């Protein structure tokens, strides 16, 4: 409830009184953290903040000899509010370096804004839309995390060749993030010879899937499902109630910890579901174990870090590493910082991360399968690490771009 000086200045200014900007102390650097701190996604925003704070703690709250001053920017998950928040950070709070935002459409909007402020450096949070970096990128927007299609790396191949699912139907929410995930799954799956005979696109917020479940074709080997949050819990429950027979394949958020942690009813139906994403709960690399141990000490933390904590942690770490190398000096408009960031190679809890020419991460991806632990709790067991996945999923860029933008009908292999 403490009233900040900034707010008082703000209110004073609003009355039309100009108060000169108080000189910032020389030995601090402001870092903006933009995430969804309001609305239904606040719980995700809070976890992403944990990730960012862990990175600041790693550096002892100081970078390049300057004290880190964290300025929070809050959106409600909509692109309009993300741009408003980032404008406040830049134009009112005087922040020159920002970590964020959290979700895909926000990322696209913030990238557009970044172009208008060339001396501000923005490092992604967890937004994972392809076109934030692939098409028409902004020179001052860096993404040390991977996109929604990269998160699927390894899954299409595994489904076809190891699980022998040759005919699949998809069920996904009807917007850009699931389009990207379906694309990431289907590109290798179709190439391997698989068929996606039917795609069900349901509006976001659909809670009653029973009719869709009944309309699933009978002759399919599996259903590939990309639903998030309560939509996913509802689908899984109803699929079980309907006595669903076909095995499931999950998107990166369909069977993550927030879903697996929900109580009881979905237990039987999700076990054995393969999925893929930027983290694996039981990754036994020492760096990941150390990260999880540190994470668990934080107040209100989840049982295991979400990909939001991981994404913000990695992006914030990258930013701080870059700042460290330029002595936290962005007085040149951030040019030196950006040059440093572009060539940065990081060792992270989830493996090596470097950037491509569009400043998008090349990083490891994790193929997992839902498994019951001895105490009955569910977790995503690591099956395979797909090393160093790039944004074009290993294809030459020209060929990849020819596949076109993701959408309801692209790709297609009925």
């Amino acid at each position: 409830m403490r009233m900040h000086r900034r707010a008082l200045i703000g209110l004073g200014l609003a009355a039309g009184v100009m108060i000169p900007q108080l000189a910032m102390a020389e030995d601090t650097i402001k870092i903006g953290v933009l995430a969804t701190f309001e609305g239904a996604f606040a719980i995700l925003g809070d976890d992403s903040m944990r990730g960012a704070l862990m990175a600041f703690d790693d550096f002892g709250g100081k970078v390049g000899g300057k004290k880190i001053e964290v300025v929070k920017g809050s959106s409600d998950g909509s692109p309009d509010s993300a741009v408003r928040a980032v404008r406040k950070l830049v134009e009112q709070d005087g922040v020159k370096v920002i970590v964020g935002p959290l979700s895909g459409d926000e990322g696209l909007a913030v990238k557009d804004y970044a172009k208008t402020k060339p001396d501000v450096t923005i490092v992604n949070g967890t937004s994972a839309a392809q076109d934030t970096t692939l098409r028409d990128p902004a020179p001052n927007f860096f993404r040390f995390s991977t996109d929604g299609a990269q998160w699927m790396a390894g899954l299409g191949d595994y489904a076809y060749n190891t699980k022998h699912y040759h005919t699949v139907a998809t069920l996904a929410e009807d917007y850009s993030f699931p389009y990207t995930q379906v694309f990431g799954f289907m590109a290798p799956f179709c190439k391997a010879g698989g068929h996606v005979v039917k795609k069900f696109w349901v509006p976001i917020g659909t809670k009653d899937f029973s009719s869709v479940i009944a309309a699933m074709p009978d002759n399919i080997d599996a259903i590939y499902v990309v639903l998030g949050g309560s939509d996913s819990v509802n689908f899984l429950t109803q699929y079980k109630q309907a006595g669903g027979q076909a095995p499931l394949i999950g998107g990166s958020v369909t069977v993550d910890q927030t879903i697996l942690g929900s109580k009881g009813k979905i237990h039987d139906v999700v076990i054995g579901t393969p999925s893929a994403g930027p983290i694996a709960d039981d990754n036994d690399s020492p760096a990941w174990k150390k990260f999880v141990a540190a994470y668990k000490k934080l107040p209100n933390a989840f049982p295991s870090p979400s990909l939001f904590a991981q994404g913000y942690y990695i992006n914030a770490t990258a930013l701080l590493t870059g700042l460290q190398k330029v002595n936290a000096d962005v007085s040149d408009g951030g040019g030196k910082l950006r040059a440093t960031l572009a060539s940065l190679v990081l060792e992270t809890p989830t493996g090596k991360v470097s950037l491509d020419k569009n400043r998008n991460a090349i990083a490891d991806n994790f193929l997992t399968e839902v498994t019951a632990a001895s105490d009955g709790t569910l977790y995503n067991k690591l099956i395979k690490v797909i090393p160093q996945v790039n944004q074009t999923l290993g294809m030459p860029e020209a060929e990849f771009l020819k596949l076109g933008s993701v959408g309801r009908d692209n790709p297609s292999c009925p």
Partner: protein
Amino acid sequence: MSLVERSAPVLTGRQAWTLVWVLVAALVAWLFIVVWPTWLDALLISKKAFINSLFNGVTLAGLYFLVASGFTLVFGLMRNVNLAHGSLYLLGAYLGYEVTEATGFWLVGVAAGFAALAVVGLLMQVFVFRRLEGDELRQTLVTLGIAIVAADLMLAIWTGVTYQIGVPTWLDGAIKLPIVTAVRSNGAAVMMTYPLYRLVVLGAAIVIGVGLWLMIGATRVGMMIRAGVDDRSMLSASGINVHVVFAIVFAVGAGLAGFAGVVGGSALSLAPGEDVRYLLASLVVVIVGGMGSITGAAIGALLVGLAEQIGLVYLPTYGIVLTFIIMVVALAIRPQGIMGRARISAAPVLALDRPNQVSTVPVHFGPAHIVLAAALLIYPLLASNFFVTQIGAYSLIWGLLALSMMLLAGYGGMVSLAQITTAGIAAYAVAIFGTNNMNIHGFGWPFWVVVPFAVLLAAVASAIIGAISVRTEGIYTIMITLAIAAAFFYFTQQNYALFNGHSGFAGVAVPHFWGVNWRDPLPFYYLCLLVAAAAYAAVLYCSRSTFGLALQAIRDNGRRARAIGFDLTGHKITAYFYSGIIAGLAGVLLVWFNGRVSPGTVDVGQAINVLVIAVIGGLRHPIGPFIGALFVVLIQTFAIDIVGAERYNTLIGLLFLAIVFVSPDGLLGLWGKLKPLLAQQSVLPRVPGEAELRAKS
């Protein structure tokens, strides 16, 4: 249906309808019984899919009926549009979850959901609504404030996690129904299995429905309720304590919402946002079925449930819009709803505060205007760029939006929640016909063509929205326009051909001319100021024009105005058209401000934001909306530094409630109350102004 009547003139209308129903029933029975031929399977995916979607539609209708019956009961008697009804649903569900978890008995949880919410409803009626009796608009605004605060507090307590209420094992699982869905190649028939619990929900809905019907039809309380629905003052005059009746009805209505919450939370799940979902469902159900009618709610729920489930399978893209289309069609054919009775509108239901007072503020461009104009003109010279655009210009834009609502609500007594929709239409038009960077549409028309076109489009759309909603009386407007706003949001989200779906349009170009980039802070601020000043002056002028006076006359006493010879509908629709021009201009500025437009720009939250701003600022004078906008934008921007972003909505909601309670005329009215106190020392003889009159009353 009308085709049948025409082609068979020997039948009476009633006989024709019977015939139609018999044929439909026979067709459905046939579809259920036979094993489908392949051509039918090809047409309707499969028998399993079709029969399942019918069953799901009917069982979902059961849930919708449970929620909507409480809503319609309360509305029928008290004309109270309870916009917090969805919050009651969600609260009941959360409480039911906690009790079920604590006791281990699901039925105890169900009972607790009902009982707890009945108490909440009772308290709301006794402590809140009774104080605002006879002022339906303020009651509705209070419910909106409660909904905003409740949603935020529930988010604080139960967070964004998804909850499911555990159903006991004897209700869980699936049962076999005697319906053959397919025949295997070996000749064995595949019987349909169906989740038992969904049938239980339907059963509960039928039991509750019959119970309510009996209560209303055959008990003394029911008699009082029926009498109250028809004529409240008569009931009161005949010696019945209406307050007791009101309290009982509100408790039952809220309790039903809580009951439905537990039942629905067991069938589906609980998460933030479900409150708005079930509120919208209830709105559509009662608008379609007829407000205040239990039978109507059942029919409405059936239509909406079936439309939703069948739409999801056979028309997935627009399934969610389908329910709203049903609503609009129902309104066009029967404005009072299927089972609703045409009501002779009694008192002007929606006049603000004291309807019979002369409620225009005297208009003259006095010194206050000159000082204000000077301050606004030199403001950019004093403020930083951030304050010029993000606070200054942004407040002006939202002020314009709220002004367009004020024109309707303040002078016309029509509270339209679809103003953001009108603005959104203009914003989308600018993105589609102008230039954007999405490689979709972007016809690149020059701005001097696009802007008038967009504004005209918005004005026409507004007139159409008006034409749909003014067919019904007063308070219904708020429900219908809210549903229209939701329908437009869903449509933009689902439609890619025109609106580019969930992503919308980005990189919307702002005009450059006379060597000026009009999105630069200074030019953009002055542009917004110019538009705002013009709209402000126009509304002021309008309020004293023949048209404006006629509009106010219609607001204050529609029947008398009609008797004098005014065309009520025509005037109201014209007002919507004018208001659409202002909202359209705001939409153009908004899309230039954001550089983008997407479904999030026009969602229900934004629609309500406009109302919140207008009410906080005050609906009596066109300056009110701008004051409200400045106030809300400042809080919105700096809440994160003051109370943290998390509880911003609680703050806004409480402020909103305080304003509605303390000063129905918003901040403007507050000033009106303070001014006479401050001016008591004045020796000049003064004619008591309206503000003083109100302060005394």
